[in-house]
């Protein structure tokens, strides 16, 4: 059973309905799950850490986890650390946008062009982290990325 999980990386996205960056984080996560790394990744709705049971909370103890947050509140990273285990890497969309010199994502319902570019950039970054993590021990922090709790 554990061997099956070893080949998967968990991605937990902020839900962020209030912000355009939340939509970016959600769509980037789905891009990785469905298109970029469909066989290597799984996800969990963030509120399930509280509303769900022990099996949901065991999620990040079994999977190395990447959290994708829309803003500096970093709900996904904090929730994962609080209710499950420290994420192996955590990304904030604003950091990706700043690093790539992209425009500000706008339109929490329908993203503008800058938002769509941010989805591409964030998804690519997450996919690279997935590749990196699968060669590492689960829970190992990835250099160059924010790590929850630090």
């Amino acid at each position: 059973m554990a061997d099956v999980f070893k080949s998967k990386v968990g991605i937990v996205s902020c839900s962020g309905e209030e912000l355009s960056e939340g939509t970016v984080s959600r769509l980037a996560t789905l891009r990785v799950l469905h298109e970029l790394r469909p066989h290597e990744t799984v996800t969990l709705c963030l509120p399930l850490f509280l509303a769900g049971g022990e099996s949901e909370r065991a999620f990040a103890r079994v999977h190395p986890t990447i959290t994708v947050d829309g803003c500096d509140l970093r709900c996904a990273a904090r929730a994962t650390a609080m209710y499950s285990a420290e994420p192996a890497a955590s990304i904030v969309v604003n950091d990706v946008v700043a690093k790539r010199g992209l425009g500000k994502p706008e339109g929490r319902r329908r993203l503008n062009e800058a938002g769509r570019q941010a989805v591409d950039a964030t998804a690519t970054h997450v996919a690279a982290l997935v590749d990196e993590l699968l060669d590492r021990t689960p829970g190992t922090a990835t250099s160059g990325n924010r790590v929850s709790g630090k």
Partner: protein
Amino acid sequence: MNDLRRKVAIVPCSGIGKPYGTVSREAGYDLCEDLRPDTTELVALSRLVMGDETARQTVAECPAIAIDGCKLMCAAKMVKQSGGTVAQEVAVLDVYRRHKNLKPVGIAELNEAGLQLARVLAEEVTGKIDELAPPATRVEQGGHHG
């Protein structure tokens, strides 16, 4: 400043795994951006989960409508756990059962039927919102209506 006295908190589930979660989110946007922008406040469930003070204050002061995409009912549970009052629990699946022609497909991007299902759900909820937070014009104009 947001005046919460006449607002209803809209709390969609944050479902990311199935189209029903996306329908709940879309219905939340329908309500807060299109149908009842003046009397609703969208609350991100993740902020509530994490105990964010503003989110908790909103559900503490406003009656909430929880819109859930699956039977786990995360949104309704979290509003209650945060000390809020759920005025109405809406399950997307229940609405879909009544509108089987509107099968939602797609998570990142809903199909047209999914968007219509969200709109139908949102329109069904507006009656409860108007009951909980009467539109300002109706209150302020007092005897001028009806």
